[in-house]
Protein backbone atom coordinates (compact mmCIF):
# COMPACT_ATOMS: atom_id res chain seq x y z
CA UNK A 1 0.00 0.00 0.00
CA UNK A 2 2.83 2.37 0.92
CA UNK A 3 4.49 1.49 -2.38
CA UNK A 4 1.26 2.32 -4.25
CA UNK A 5 0.91 5.66 -2.46
CA UNK A 6 4.56 6.41 -3.12
CA UNK A 7 4.43 5.60 -6.81
CA UNK A 8 1.17 7.55 -7.25
CA UNK A 9 2.73 10.55 -5.50
CA UNK A 10 5.78 10.33 -7.74
CA UNK A 11 3.52 10.18 -10.80
CA UNK A 12 1.62 13.27 -9.67
CA UNK A 13 4.84 15.19 -8.94
CA UNK A 14 6.28 14.15 -12.32
CA UNK A 15 3.08 15.29 -14.04
CA UNK A 16 3.25 18.70 -12.30
CA UNK A 17 6.90 18.97 -13.32
CA UNK A 18 6.02 18.03 -16.89
CA UNK A 19 3.28 20.66 -17.05
CA UNK A 20 5.53 23.38 -15.60
CA UNK A 21 8.33 22.47 -18.00
CA UNK A 22 5.88 22.48 -20.91
CA UNK A 23 4.63 25.97 -19.99
CA UNK A 24 8.09 27.47 -19.59
CA UNK A 25 9.42 25.94 -22.82
CA UNK A 26 6.31 27.06 -24.73
CA UNK A 27 6.84 30.68 -23.70
CA UNK A 28 10.60 30.49 -24.32
CA UNK A 29 10.20 28.97 -27.79
CA UNK A 30 7.48 31.48 -28.65
CA UNK A 31 9.87 34.31 -27.73
CA UNK A 32 12.41 32.84 -30.20
CA UNK A 33 9.96 32.67 -33.11
CA UNK A 34 9.08 35.10 -35.88
CA UNK A 35 5.79 37.04 -36.21
CA UNK A 36 5.22 37.01 -32.46
CA UNK A 37 2.88 40.01 -32.41
CA UNK A 38 0.61 38.59 -35.14
CA UNK A 39 0.36 35.25 -33.36
CA UNK A 40 -0.28 36.92 -30.01
CA UNK A 41 -3.04 39.14 -31.44
CA UNK A 42 -4.70 36.09 -33.00
CA UNK A 43 -4.51 34.28 -29.65
CA UNK A 44 -6.00 37.29 -27.83
CA UNK A 45 -8.88 37.16 -30.31
CA UNK A 46 -9.37 33.42 -29.77
CA UNK A 47 -9.20 33.44 -25.99
CA UNK A 48 -10.40 36.95 -25.25
CA UNK A 49 -12.73 38.42 -27.85
CA UNK A 50 -14.61 35.19 -28.58
CA UNK A 51 -15.35 34.72 -24.87
CA UNK A 52 -16.79 38.20 -24.30
CA UNK A 53 -20.45 37.24 -25.02
CA UNK A 54 -20.49 34.23 -22.69
CA UNK A 55 -18.64 36.11 -19.94
CA UNK A 56 -21.06 39.05 -20.28
CA UNK A 57 -24.16 36.83 -20.13
CA UNK A 58 -22.94 34.82 -17.15
CA UNK A 59 -21.77 38.01 -15.42
CA UNK A 60 -25.18 39.64 -15.86
CA UNK A 61 -27.13 36.68 -14.54
CA UNK A 62 -24.73 36.17 -11.65
CA UNK A 63 -25.22 39.83 -10.67
CA UNK A 64 -28.99 39.54 -11.03
CA UNK A 65 -29.18 36.42 -8.83
CA UNK A 66 -26.80 37.84 -6.25
CA UNK A 67 -28.84 41.04 -6.07
CA UNK A 68 -31.94 38.99 -5.43
CA UNK A 69 -30.47 36.59 -2.85
CA UNK A 70 -28.47 39.18 -0.95
CA UNK A 71 -31.34 41.68 -0.86
CA UNK A 72 -33.64 39.27 1.02
CA UNK A 73 -30.83 38.12 3.34
CA UNK A 74 -29.83 41.69 4.15
CA UNK A 75 -33.49 42.77 4.49
CA UNK A 76 -33.90 40.36 7.42
CA UNK A 77 -31.14 42.30 9.19
CA UNK A 78 -32.48 45.65 8.02
CA UNK A 79 -29.30 46.24 6.03
CA UNK A 80 -30.61 46.51 2.44
CA UNK A 81 -28.38 49.54 1.96
CA UNK A 82 -25.32 47.26 2.11
CA UNK A 83 -26.41 45.44 -1.06
CA UNK A 84 -23.84 47.36 -3.15
CA UNK A 85 -20.99 46.35 -0.81
CA UNK A 86 -22.00 42.71 -0.75
CA UNK A 87 -22.47 42.37 -4.51
CA UNK A 88 -19.32 44.28 -5.47
CA UNK A 89 -16.97 42.65 -2.97
CA UNK A 90 -18.11 39.11 -3.56
CA UNK A 91 -17.87 39.58 -7.32
CA UNK A 92 -14.51 41.34 -7.40
CA UNK A 93 -12.80 39.18 -4.78
CA UNK A 94 -14.17 35.73 -5.57
CA UNK A 95 -16.90 35.09 -8.05
CA UNK A 96 -15.57 37.27 -10.86
CA UNK A 97 -12.16 35.60 -11.30
CA UNK A 98 -13.44 32.08 -10.63
CA UNK A 99 -16.55 32.13 -12.82
CA UNK A 100 -14.75 33.96 -15.63
CA UNK A 101 -11.99 31.37 -15.61
CA UNK A 102 -14.53 28.54 -15.63
CA UNK A 103 -16.38 30.14 -18.55
CA UNK A 104 -13.16 30.58 -20.55
CA UNK A 105 -12.18 26.98 -19.80
CA UNK A 106 -15.57 25.86 -21.13
CA UNK A 107 -15.32 27.96 -24.27
CA UNK A 108 -11.64 28.41 -25.20
CA UNK A 109 -9.95 25.72 -23.09
CA UNK A 110 -11.92 22.78 -24.44
CA UNK A 111 -11.53 23.98 -28.03
CA UNK A 112 -7.80 24.49 -27.46
CA UNK A 113 -7.36 20.94 -26.14
CA UNK A 114 -9.33 19.41 -29.01
CA UNK A 115 -7.68 21.58 -31.68
CA UNK A 116 -4.17 20.66 -30.56
CA UNK A 117 -5.25 17.03 -30.05
CA UNK A 118 -6.53 16.82 -33.63
CA UNK A 119 -3.33 18.41 -34.89
CA UNK A 120 -1.38 15.77 -33.00
CA UNK A 121 -3.45 12.94 -34.49
CA UNK A 122 -3.17 14.36 -38.03
CA UNK A 123 0.64 14.62 -37.67
CA UNK A 124 0.43 18.40 -38.09
CA UNK A 125 2.55 18.81 -34.95
CA UNK A 126 5.15 16.43 -36.42
CA UNK A 127 5.00 18.44 -39.63
CA UNK A 128 5.83 21.61 -37.69
CA UNK A 129 8.79 19.86 -36.06
CA UNK A 130 10.14 18.71 -39.43
CA UNK A 131 9.88 22.29 -40.73
CA UNK A 132 12.10 23.40 -37.87
CA UNK A 133 9.24 25.18 -36.09
CA UNK A 134 8.87 24.36 -32.41
CA UNK A 135 5.25 23.24 -32.05
CA UNK A 136 4.98 24.32 -28.41
CA UNK A 137 6.19 27.80 -29.25
CA UNK A 138 3.93 28.02 -32.29
CA UNK A 139 0.73 26.56 -30.87
CA UNK A 140 0.89 27.08 -27.11
CA UNK A 141 3.22 30.02 -26.45
CA UNK A 142 1.00 32.74 -27.99
CA UNK A 143 -2.04 31.45 -26.12
CA UNK A 144 -0.21 31.39 -22.80
CA UNK A 145 1.02 34.93 -23.31
CA UNK A 146 -2.48 36.02 -24.38
CA UNK A 147 -4.01 34.46 -21.27
CA UNK A 148 -2.09 36.88 -19.02
CA UNK A 149 -3.99 39.79 -20.51
CA UNK A 150 -7.30 38.18 -21.52
CA UNK A 151 -8.24 36.66 -18.19
CA UNK A 152 -7.85 39.88 -16.14
CA UNK A 153 -9.69 41.97 -18.77
CA UNK A 154 -12.55 39.48 -19.05
CA UNK A 155 -12.70 39.30 -15.25
CA UNK A 156 -13.02 43.09 -15.13
CA UNK A 157 -15.89 42.89 -17.68
CA UNK A 158 -17.55 40.16 -15.61
CA UNK A 159 -17.26 42.23 -12.42
CA UNK A 160 -18.67 45.39 -14.01
CA UNK A 161 -21.58 43.64 -15.69
CA UNK A 162 -22.26 41.63 -12.51
CA UNK A 163 -22.36 44.79 -10.39
CA UNK A 164 -24.73 46.31 -12.94
CA UNK A 165 -26.87 43.14 -12.67
CA UNK A 166 -26.99 43.61 -8.90
CA UNK A 167 -28.14 47.19 -9.50
CA UNK A 168 -30.93 45.97 -11.84
CA UNK A 169 -32.44 43.62 -9.24
CA UNK A 170 -31.60 45.71 -6.19
CA UNK A 171 -32.54 49.19 -7.37
CA UNK A 172 -34.79 48.75 -10.41
CA UNK A 173 -36.83 45.76 -9.18
CA UNK A 174 -36.56 45.87 -5.38
CA UNK A 175 -36.39 49.64 -4.85
CA UNK A 176 -33.02 50.03 -3.12
CA UNK A 177 -32.04 53.64 -3.75
CA UNK A 178 -29.70 53.80 -6.79
CA UNK A 179 -27.51 56.47 -5.15
CA UNK A 180 -27.10 54.35 -2.03
CA UNK A 181 -26.28 51.23 -4.09
CA UNK A 182 -23.57 52.91 -6.19
CA UNK A 183 -22.19 54.85 -3.24
CA UNK A 184 -21.72 51.60 -1.32
CA UNK A 185 -20.12 49.96 -4.35
CA UNK A 186 -17.54 52.75 -4.74
CA UNK A 187 -16.83 53.17 -1.04
CA UNK A 188 -16.45 49.49 -0.20
CA UNK A 189 -14.13 48.41 -3.00
CA UNK A 190 -10.44 48.98 -2.23
CA UNK A 191 -7.55 48.85 -4.65
CA UNK A 192 -6.32 45.67 -2.93
CA UNK A 193 -9.60 43.93 -3.82
CA UNK A 194 -9.17 44.82 -7.48
CA UNK A 195 -5.55 43.78 -7.85
CA UNK A 196 -6.20 40.63 -5.79
CA UNK A 197 -8.87 39.70 -8.33
CA UNK A 198 -6.50 40.44 -11.21
CA UNK A 199 -3.72 38.33 -9.69
CA UNK A 200 -6.17 35.46 -9.37
CA UNK A 201 -7.34 35.92 -12.96
CA UNK A 202 -3.78 35.92 -14.34
CA UNK A 203 -2.86 32.78 -12.35
CA UNK A 204 -6.06 31.03 -13.44
CA UNK A 205 -5.34 31.96 -17.05
CA UNK A 206 -1.83 30.54 -16.92
CA UNK A 207 -2.99 27.35 -15.20
CA UNK A 208 -6.01 26.61 -17.37
CA UNK A 209 -4.40 27.34 -20.75
CA UNK A 210 -1.32 25.30 -19.77
CA UNK A 211 -3.40 22.32 -18.65
CA UNK A 212 -5.68 22.41 -21.71
CA UNK A 213 -2.77 22.77 -24.15
CA UNK A 214 -0.76 20.06 -22.35
CA UNK A 215 -3.65 17.59 -22.51
CA UNK A 216 -4.13 18.29 -26.21
CA UNK A 217 -0.42 18.23 -27.06
CA UNK A 218 0.15 14.86 -25.40
CA UNK A 219 -3.21 13.36 -26.31
CA UNK A 220 -1.41 10.36 -27.89
CA UNK A 221 0.37 9.62 -24.61
CA UNK A 222 -2.16 10.66 -21.97
CA UNK A 223 -5.41 9.24 -23.33
CA UNK A 224 -6.51 5.66 -22.90
CA UNK A 225 -8.25 5.81 -26.30
CA UNK A 226 -6.91 6.69 -29.76
CA UNK A 227 -8.14 8.92 -32.55
CA UNK A 228 -11.33 10.91 -32.13
CA UNK A 229 -12.15 9.25 -28.80
CA UNK A 230 -8.69 10.13 -27.50
CA UNK A 231 -9.17 13.77 -28.47
CA UNK A 232 -12.61 13.83 -26.87
CA UNK A 233 -11.18 12.28 -23.68
CA UNK A 234 -8.35 14.84 -23.66
CA UNK A 235 -10.77 17.74 -24.03
CA UNK A 236 -13.00 16.45 -21.25
CA UNK A 237 -10.09 15.85 -18.89
CA UNK A 238 -8.62 19.24 -19.76
CA UNK A 239 -11.83 20.97 -18.71
CA UNK A 240 -12.19 18.89 -15.52
CA UNK A 241 -8.54 19.30 -14.41
CA UNK A 242 -8.55 23.01 -15.26
CA UNK A 243 -11.73 23.60 -13.28
CA UNK A 244 -10.33 21.77 -10.25
CA UNK A 245 -7.05 23.68 -10.61
CA UNK A 246 -8.94 26.99 -10.65
CA UNK A 247 -10.79 26.17 -7.43
CA UNK A 248 -7.68 24.85 -5.67
CA UNK A 249 -5.60 27.84 -6.76
CA UNK A 250 -8.41 30.17 -5.66
CA UNK A 251 -8.24 28.78 -2.14
CA UNK A 252 -4.45 29.06 -2.01
CA UNK A 253 -4.29 32.62 -3.38
CA UNK A 254 -7.14 33.77 -1.12
CA UNK A 255 -5.25 32.34 1.88
CA UNK A 256 -2.26 34.50 0.97
CA UNK A 257 -4.19 37.63 0.07
CA UNK A 258 -6.69 37.76 2.90
Amino acid at each position, binding site marked *: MIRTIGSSTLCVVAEFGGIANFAVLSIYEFCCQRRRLAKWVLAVHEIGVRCVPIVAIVGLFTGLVMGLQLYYTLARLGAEAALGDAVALSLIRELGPVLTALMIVGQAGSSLASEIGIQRND*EQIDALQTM*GIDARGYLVGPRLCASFICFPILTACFDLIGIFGGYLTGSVLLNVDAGVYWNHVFSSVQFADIYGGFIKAAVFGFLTITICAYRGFYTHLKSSSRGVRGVSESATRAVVFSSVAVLAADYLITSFLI
Partner: protein
Amino acid sequence: MSDKFLSISGLKKHFGNNRVLDGIDLEIERASITTIIGKSGIGKSVLLKCIANLVLADEGKIQLDGRPIIQSRKTARQPGGVCFSYMFQNNALFDSMTISENISMPLLETTSMSTHELHDEVEGMLGRLELGDVSSSYPAELSGGMRKRVALGRALITKPQIVLFDEPTTGLDPERKFSVLEMIANYRKQFGFTALLVSHDIPEVFEISDRVAWLDQGTLRFIGKPEELELSADLELSRFLDMANYGRNKTE
Protein backbone atom coordinates in the same frame (compact mmCIF):
# COMPACT_ATOMS: atom_id res chain seq x y z
CA MET B 1 33.47 16.83 -48.23
CA SER B 2 32.32 13.21 -48.00
CA ASP B 3 29.99 11.72 -50.59
CA LYS B 4 28.12 9.96 -47.80
CA PHE B 5 25.53 12.55 -46.94
CA LEU B 6 23.34 10.49 -44.63
CA SER B 7 24.87 7.72 -42.61
CA ILE B 8 22.91 5.34 -40.38
CA SER B 9 24.60 2.67 -38.29
CA GLY B 10 23.23 0.10 -35.86
CA LEU B 11 19.82 1.74 -35.63
CA LYS B 12 17.41 -0.12 -33.37
CA LYS B 13 13.86 0.64 -32.34
CA HIS B 14 11.29 -1.48 -30.59
CA PHE B 15 7.72 -0.88 -29.48
CA GLY B 16 6.98 -3.14 -26.53
CA ASN B 17 8.05 -6.63 -27.57
CA ASN B 18 7.94 -5.76 -31.25
CA ARG B 19 11.48 -5.11 -32.50
CA VAL B 20 10.73 -2.98 -35.56
CA LEU B 21 14.26 -1.92 -36.48
CA ASP B 22 16.97 -4.35 -35.50
CA GLY B 23 20.29 -2.85 -36.56
CA ILE B 24 19.85 -0.73 -39.67
CA ASP B 25 23.03 0.25 -41.50
CA LEU B 26 22.64 2.53 -44.49
CA GLU B 27 24.75 5.12 -46.25
CA ILE B 28 23.22 7.51 -48.72
CA GLU B 29 25.19 9.53 -51.20
CA ARG B 30 24.68 13.23 -51.75
CA ALA B 31 22.06 14.14 -54.38
CA SER B 32 20.95 10.55 -54.85
CA ILE B 33 17.48 9.00 -54.63
CA THR B 34 17.26 5.96 -52.40
CA THR B 35 14.01 4.01 -52.14
CA ILE B 36 13.10 1.77 -49.24
CA ILE B 37 10.72 -1.03 -50.14
CA GLY B 38 9.15 -3.67 -47.95
CA LYS B 39 5.88 -5.10 -46.74
CA SER B 40 3.32 -2.87 -45.04
CA GLY B 41 3.87 -2.39 -41.31
CA ILE B 42 7.47 -3.60 -41.48
CA GLY B 43 8.92 -0.33 -40.12
CA LYS B 44 9.72 1.79 -43.19
CA SER B 45 7.93 4.86 -41.87
CA VAL B 46 9.47 4.32 -38.42
CA LEU B 47 12.90 4.42 -40.06
CA LEU B 48 12.06 7.73 -41.75
CA LYS B 49 10.68 9.12 -38.48
CA CYS B 50 13.85 8.11 -36.64
CA ILE B 51 15.87 10.01 -39.25
CA ALA B 52 13.54 13.00 -38.89
CA ASN B 53 13.92 12.76 -35.10
CA LEU B 54 10.15 12.35 -34.69
CA VAL B 55 10.71 8.94 -33.12
CA LEU B 56 13.65 8.44 -30.79
CA ALA B 57 15.74 5.40 -31.67
CA ASP B 58 16.72 3.02 -28.88
CA GLU B 59 20.23 2.54 -30.21
CA GLY B 60 22.32 3.56 -33.18
CA LYS B 61 23.79 6.58 -34.84
CA ILE B 62 22.37 8.83 -37.53
CA GLN B 63 24.71 11.36 -39.09
CA LEU B 64 23.84 14.00 -41.61
CA ASP B 65 26.72 15.52 -43.47
CA GLY B 66 29.14 14.15 -40.90
CA ARG B 67 27.32 15.51 -37.85
CA PRO B 68 24.77 13.92 -35.50
CA ILE B 69 21.29 14.50 -36.90
CA ILE B 70 19.99 16.48 -33.87
CA GLN B 71 22.84 18.96 -34.16
CA SER B 72 22.28 19.30 -37.91
CA ARG B 73 18.58 20.02 -37.40
CA LYS B 74 19.23 22.70 -34.77
CA THR B 75 21.54 24.60 -37.07
CA ALA B 76 19.45 24.08 -40.22
CA ARG B 77 19.19 27.79 -41.03
CA GLN B 78 22.72 28.67 -40.05
CA PRO B 79 25.65 28.71 -42.48
CA GLY B 80 26.74 25.14 -43.06
CA GLY B 81 23.48 23.81 -41.64
CA VAL B 82 21.38 21.18 -43.38
CA CYS B 83 17.90 22.14 -44.53
CA PHE B 84 15.58 19.21 -44.20
CA SER B 85 12.04 18.35 -45.34
CA TYR B 86 9.59 15.56 -44.77
CA MET B 87 6.58 14.62 -46.83
CA PHE B 88 4.08 12.72 -44.71
CA GLN B 89 2.12 9.70 -45.82
CA ASN B 90 -1.20 11.40 -44.94
CA ASN B 91 0.15 14.80 -46.10
CA ALA B 92 -0.27 16.45 -42.65
CA LEU B 93 -1.56 19.66 -44.19
CA PHE B 94 -2.90 22.40 -41.93
CA ASP B 95 -6.60 22.10 -42.61
CA SER B 96 -7.52 25.57 -41.33
CA MET B 97 -5.06 27.22 -43.73
CA THR B 98 -5.45 27.80 -47.47
CA ILE B 99 -3.24 26.00 -49.97
CA SER B 100 -0.98 28.99 -50.49
CA GLU B 101 -0.70 29.52 -46.71
CA ASN B 102 0.23 25.86 -46.28
CA ILE B 103 2.98 26.10 -48.88
CA SER B 104 4.30 29.45 -47.65
CA MET B 105 4.36 28.46 -43.99
CA PRO B 106 7.90 27.01 -43.76
CA LEU B 107 9.32 30.12 -45.44
CA LEU B 108 7.18 32.50 -43.40
CA GLU B 109 8.20 30.95 -40.09
CA THR B 110 11.85 30.18 -40.70
CA THR B 111 13.20 32.82 -43.09
CA SER B 112 13.26 36.59 -43.17
CA MET B 113 11.97 36.84 -46.77
CA SER B 114 10.04 39.93 -47.73
CA THR B 115 6.33 39.57 -48.52
CA HIS B 116 7.08 40.17 -52.21
CA GLU B 117 9.77 37.47 -52.39
CA LEU B 118 7.58 35.06 -50.47
CA HIS B 119 4.65 35.68 -52.80
CA ASP B 120 6.85 35.06 -55.86
CA GLU B 121 8.24 31.82 -54.43
CA VAL B 122 4.80 30.48 -53.52
CA GLU B 123 3.26 31.51 -56.85
CA GLY B 124 6.13 29.81 -58.67
CA MET B 125 5.66 26.60 -56.72
CA LEU B 126 1.87 26.66 -57.19
CA GLY B 127 2.39 27.11 -60.93
CA ARG B 128 4.87 24.23 -61.21
CA LEU B 129 2.50 21.97 -59.28
CA GLU B 130 -0.51 23.08 -61.38
CA LEU B 131 -2.25 24.33 -58.25
CA GLY B 132 -2.60 27.99 -59.20
CA ASP B 133 -6.40 27.77 -59.49
CA VAL B 134 -6.88 26.40 -56.00
CA SER B 135 -4.42 28.58 -54.09
CA SER B 136 -7.16 30.06 -51.91
CA SER B 137 -8.98 26.77 -51.33
CA TYR B 138 -8.65 24.67 -48.19
CA PRO B 139 -7.14 21.15 -48.17
CA ALA B 140 -10.53 19.55 -47.46
CA GLU B 141 -11.85 21.01 -50.74
CA LEU B 142 -9.19 19.26 -52.85
CA SER B 143 -8.90 15.74 -54.21
CA GLY B 144 -6.40 13.29 -52.68
CA GLY B 145 -3.99 13.80 -55.56
CA MET B 146 -4.07 17.57 -55.28
CA ARG B 147 -3.45 17.37 -51.54
CA LYS B 148 -0.43 15.18 -52.28
CA ARG B 149 0.93 17.85 -54.61
CA VAL B 150 0.37 20.54 -51.96
CA ALA B 151 2.35 18.43 -49.48
CA LEU B 152 5.07 18.03 -52.09
CA GLY B 153 5.12 21.79 -52.65
CA ARG B 154 5.41 22.45 -48.93
CA ALA B 155 8.26 19.96 -48.65
CA LEU B 156 10.19 21.51 -51.53
CA ILE B 157 9.52 25.23 -51.02
CA THR B 158 12.51 25.65 -48.70
CA LYS B 159 14.85 24.12 -51.31
CA PRO B 160 15.93 21.44 -48.85
CA GLN B 161 19.18 19.50 -49.07
CA ILE B 162 17.50 16.29 -47.99
CA VAL B 163 13.87 15.26 -48.34
CA LEU B 164 12.24 12.23 -46.76
CA PHE B 165 9.20 11.07 -48.74
CA ASP B 166 6.84 8.74 -46.93
CA GLU B 167 4.81 7.06 -49.68
CA PRO B 168 4.50 10.18 -51.84
CA THR B 169 2.34 8.52 -54.50
CA THR B 170 -0.17 6.63 -52.37
CA GLY B 171 -3.74 7.28 -53.49
CA LEU B 172 -2.82 8.79 -56.84
CA ASP B 173 -4.05 7.61 -60.23
CA PRO B 174 -1.35 6.10 -62.51
CA GLU B 175 -0.92 9.33 -64.47
CA ARG B 176 -0.50 11.50 -61.37
CA LYS B 177 1.68 8.85 -59.76
CA PHE B 178 4.08 9.02 -62.67
CA SER B 179 3.89 12.81 -62.67
CA VAL B 180 4.78 13.04 -58.93
CA LEU B 181 7.70 10.62 -59.34
CA GLU B 182 8.89 12.57 -62.36
CA MET B 183 8.57 15.80 -60.39
CA ILE B 184 10.72 14.36 -57.59
CA ALA B 185 13.35 13.31 -60.15
CA ASN B 186 13.26 16.68 -61.91
CA TYR B 187 13.43 18.64 -58.68
CA ARG B 188 16.33 16.49 -57.56
CA LYS B 189 18.17 17.51 -60.74
CA GLN B 190 17.13 21.15 -60.37
CA PHE B 191 17.87 21.61 -56.66
CA GLY B 192 20.30 18.75 -56.12
CA PHE B 193 18.68 17.47 -52.96
CA THR B 194 19.15 14.01 -51.54
CA ALA B 195 15.95 11.98 -51.38
CA LEU B 196 14.97 9.01 -49.29
CA LEU B 197 11.67 7.49 -50.35
CA VAL B 198 9.42 4.89 -48.88
CA SER B 199 7.24 3.47 -51.61
CA HIS B 200 5.08 0.54 -52.63
CA ASP B 201 4.99 1.60 -56.27
CA ILE B 202 7.05 -1.21 -57.68
CA PRO B 203 8.42 -1.03 -60.34
CA GLU B 204 7.52 2.61 -61.21
CA VAL B 205 9.63 4.02 -58.37
CA PHE B 206 12.73 2.16 -59.63
CA GLU B 207 12.76 4.42 -62.70
CA ILE B 208 13.84 7.37 -60.56
CA SER B 209 15.82 5.52 -57.88
CA ASP B 210 19.60 5.37 -57.81
CA ARG B 211 19.51 2.74 -55.10
CA VAL B 212 16.92 0.48 -53.55
CA ALA B 213 16.92 -0.91 -50.01
CA TRP B 214 14.67 -3.79 -48.98
CA LEU B 215 13.59 -3.74 -45.34
CA ASP B 216 12.55 -7.06 -43.88
CA GLN B 217 12.50 -8.41 -40.30
CA GLY B 218 14.01 -5.22 -38.93
CA THR B 219 17.09 -5.15 -41.18
CA LEU B 220 17.96 -3.98 -44.66
CA ARG B 221 18.43 -7.31 -46.41
CA PHE B 222 19.23 -5.81 -49.80
CA ILE B 223 20.87 -2.52 -50.73
CA GLY B 224 21.84 -1.91 -54.31
CA LYS B 225 20.92 -0.55 -57.70
CA PRO B 226 17.42 -1.32 -59.02
CA GLU B 227 18.82 -3.50 -61.82
CA GLU B 228 20.67 -5.60 -59.23
CA LEU B 229 17.38 -6.59 -57.56
CA GLU B 230 16.66 -9.45 -59.93
CA LEU B 231 20.20 -10.76 -59.53
CA SER B 232 19.73 -11.18 -55.81
CA ALA B 233 19.78 -14.78 -54.60
CA ASP B 234 17.44 -13.97 -51.71
CA LEU B 235 14.31 -16.04 -52.26
CA GLU B 236 12.28 -13.89 -49.89
CA LEU B 237 13.14 -10.82 -51.92
CA SER B 238 12.22 -12.58 -55.17
CA ARG B 239 8.91 -13.62 -53.68
CA PHE B 240 8.26 -10.08 -52.43
CA LEU B 241 9.02 -8.65 -55.88
CA ASP B 242 6.81 -11.22 -57.56
CA MET B 243 4.02 -10.34 -55.18
CA ALA B 244 4.59 -6.67 -55.94
CA ASN B 245 4.03 -7.45 -59.61
CA TYR B 246 7.56 -6.52 -60.48
CA GLY B 247 8.21 -9.44 -62.81
CA ARG B 248 5.13 -8.89 -64.95
CA ASN B 249 5.70 -5.18 -65.40
CA LYS B 250 9.35 -5.74 -66.15
CA THR B 251 8.44 -8.06 -69.03
CA GLU B 252 5.90 -5.53 -70.35
